[in-house]
């Protein structure tokens, strides 16, 4: 089936179906415009420089059902979460908000979590949503951003009022139950001096083939602080394409940790833009892939104004026939004096069939900057391995320990115990660790 046909039948028909109910008018316009962009552009191809290493042929061929809310297994989904963890939980099943599984009881006054569909029409927040929605991720960037915006309906709007400190993290979980395509959307508006921890996770009940295409937009007002932990654990048959965009105002701090474990094919675009001086961003990540997984990370850090600091530390472990792509762009614009931008991408290549393509890219238009980037591709150090073997560890264990050590720096950034534990297990299990042996 050709790409054009897919657009016609699946996305096209669905789009026509939903269009009539869209309110308000501005949203309808945005969605129609975005769908027209998708129809014109289609999905990116290898000829697009930004997609040069990620072949979407398989995804383009697939025909997903778009909505499948009726028969979700709520019990099975609830088992995916830790019962002891203290968190505000918002659950989406197959991209649809699920009230039954959602529990946001532990929010202070000033913090609001709303279904995006409702927020759009809300008297108080409608204006705020309209002001920010779609402003940080341009729907016209590529076929995926266009598609998500065209289907913009289900999602979350998080609003943290001025000087509000949210103690208990807000966890947004996107759970896939069966085969479907979903287009969730998140908008976070953190007002001046507010503080919040956001967890964004992608989970599944089984090993189905499905497609998640999400966009997260975050805007931090002056002095706002946001900690963002993203854990992607889609099924190994799934397709996952996400864009995260953060817009930083004066002296705000955005600290993100992005963990990629799942999906047959995943692509994460992360865009951080500095709009005012004194802001700081941490964009860290770990991708750990094996089998025939393909994990692609594209980041853009845009120093548009003076005196901002960015730190980027991405690590990758690539095993079996997996393939990892990292492309990190750092722009320092003409007037952005006093910029400090550091970027590092280190990769462990554990198999001869695995492949890493990395491109740390700097574009600098100002001389008063401190910029450095580095990238490495290598394997475990023979000497370190020898040392552990000489201490009586067996080889598998020694390798696992060293591999874990490589990833630990990123995992340790995560403060939420249940997630950290899951990750520890995931890393060690994925590496066939046999700690008891």
């Amino acid at each position, binding site marked *: 089936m050709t790409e054009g046909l897919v657009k016609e039948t699946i996305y096209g028909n669905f789009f026509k179906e939903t269009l009539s109910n869209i309110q308000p008018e501005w949203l309808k316009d945005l969605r129609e415009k975005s769908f027209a962009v998708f129809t014109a552009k289609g999905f990116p191809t290898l000829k697009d420089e930004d997609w040069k290493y990620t072949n979407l042929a398989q995804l383009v061929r697939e025909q997903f059902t778009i909505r499948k809310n009726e028969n979700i297994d709520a019990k099975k989904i609830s088992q995916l979460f830790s019962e002891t963890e203290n968190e505000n939980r918002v659950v989406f099943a197959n991209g649809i908000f699920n009230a039954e599984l959602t529990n946001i009881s532990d929010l202070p006054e000033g913090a609001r979590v709303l279904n995006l569909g409702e927020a759009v029409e809300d008297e108080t927040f409608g204006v705020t949503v309209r002001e920010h929605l779609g402003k940080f991720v341009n729907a016209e960037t590529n076929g995926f951003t266009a598609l998500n915006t065209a289907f913009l309906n289900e999602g979350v709007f998080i609003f943290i009022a001025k000087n509000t400190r949210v103690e208990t993290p807000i966890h947004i979980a996107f759970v896939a139950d069966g085969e479907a395509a979903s287009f969730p959307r998140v908008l976070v508006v953190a007002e001046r001096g507010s503080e919040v921890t956001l967890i964004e996770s992608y989970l599944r009940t089984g090993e189905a083939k499905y497609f998640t295409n999400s966009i997260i937009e975050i805007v931090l007002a002056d002095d706002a602080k946001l900690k963002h932990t993203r854990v992607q654990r889609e099924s190994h048959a799934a397709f996952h394409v996400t864009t995260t965009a953060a817009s930083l105002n004066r002296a705000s701090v955005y600290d993100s940790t992005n963990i990629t474990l799942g999906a047959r094919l995943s692509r994460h675009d992360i865009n951080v833009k500095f709009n005012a001086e004194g802001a700081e961003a941490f964009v860290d990540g770990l991708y750990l892939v094996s089998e025939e997984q393909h994990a692609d990370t594209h980041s853009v850090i845009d120093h548009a104004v003076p005196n901002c600091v960015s730190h980027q530390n991405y690590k990758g472990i690539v095993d079996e026939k997996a393939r990892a792509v990292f492309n990190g762009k750092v722009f320092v614009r*003409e007037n952005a004096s006093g910029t400090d931008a550091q970027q590092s991408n280190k990769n462990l290549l554990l198999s001869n069939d695995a492949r890493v*393509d*990395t491109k740390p890219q700097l574009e600098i238009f100002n001389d008063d*900057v401190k910029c*450095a980037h580095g*990238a*490495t591709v290598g394997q475990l150090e023979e000497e370190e391995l020898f040392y552990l073997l000489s201490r009586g560890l067996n080889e598998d264990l020694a390798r696992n320990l060293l591999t874990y050590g490589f990833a630990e720096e990123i995992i340790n950034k995560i403060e939420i115990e249940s997630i950290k534990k899951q990750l520890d297990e995931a890393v060690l299990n994925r590496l066939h660790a046999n700690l008891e042996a």
Partner: protein
Amino acid sequence: MSTAVELLANREYKYGFTTDIETETIAKGLSEDTVRLISRKKNEPEWLLNFRLKAYRHWLTMKLPDNWANFHYPNIDFQNISYYSAPKQKAKKQSLDEVDPELLRTFEKLGIPLTEQKMLANVAVDAVFDSVSVATTYKKKLLEAGVIFCSFTEAVADYPELIQKYLGSVVPSSDNYYAALNAAVFSDGSFVFIPKGVKCPMELSTYFRINTQDSGQFERTLIVAEEGGYVAYNEGCTAPQFDTNQLHAAVVELVALDNSEIKYSTVQNWYAGDESGKGGIYNFVTKRGACRGRNSKISWTQVETGSAITWKYPSVILQGDNSIGEFYSVALTNNAQVADTGTKMIHLGKNTKSTIISKGISAGKSNNSYRGLVKVMPKAEGARNYTQCDSMLIGQSCEANTFPYIEVMNSSAKVEHEATTSKISEEQLFYLQQRGLSQEDSVSLIINGFCKEVFKELPMEYAVEAQKLLGLKLEGSVG
């Protein structure tokens, strides 16, 4: 800091003059007839004409890729270029005395005392004036050692089997747009052949010079080192000042067999255009070496200071086991210059090693990019790469970019890339100035320190020249 350095940077191009010499130039335009005419003028054999025609026909099917670069460049009207221009030549000259005195004066102005070089520099110079080689020195001495060093045209006549064997074997005529164009219309160039076990007794050097307004120069250089051979080849360039842009699309092919080594150094200082970017040379070059044999080594060193636009990626294909590829580069841009340069290291053989050291200095409103590829293929067990690319920015309006592509398909490979960006700090300048150095000398000293790792790879005379060149080029840009 202000005016002193600005003054420096705006110094006029020192080598901007044209030589009044009778040249034979064919009419502008490009067609199959042009290709045939060039071939006929050069009395080429049938196989070479066919090589050209095949390349030309392929070129017609090719399109310039659009939007790949992060800068704009004007469309080039390929019909508005004269593809052949030769100084009128009578019989072959046996000594320099017979060379047109006007031509010799040009070289003298450039500071290349060709007549003295025989005695002083121990360097054989194959001076290419526009398209045809006019004087070759030391040929005899080299021949005694078994080394062939001659113009490409002569090589076609005298060693057709070698040319047939290696021409287009590293850079196929279909490789890219400008390589195809070059293969169709190349005029002349140099050919070097180092036979088995021979270490070339002297460093070889060619001076290229573009003269004749509007004549694109399409050089073709081929260097082959047989088993155990060694050669160091130096290339330096200057060009007269013109207002209309001139296209230079050269192709350089290097072939290194078992245990051989080729060291290729370039100092490029062609006319860069005026302050606003008017005029200047377009330097679109394809340079590639193939380490075919075991333990072979190819080393590229370049100092790029001229041209309005430079596109150049001297590359090494590391086929032989244990082979080594090196790339040392200093690229300096000022005013409206654009330099997009870097290298490709393709690791195919086992235990192949590559080193990339790139230093970019951008001043004025210029755009300086490192664009490189390190590719480790699945069978390249134990491949190793180290890349360091540093940029230095001078002023608020310039641009320094890094586009390193790293593709690794073997788990025993080790690839490291690091890059930094810096500027000349007030503290450094202050320190040097309070020690009594002038601002200009201080800047020059800092820049030379920044580039030291590359300069030490150059032959001494070149290193001296290069250091002076950087100082000259940067005059006035720090302030």
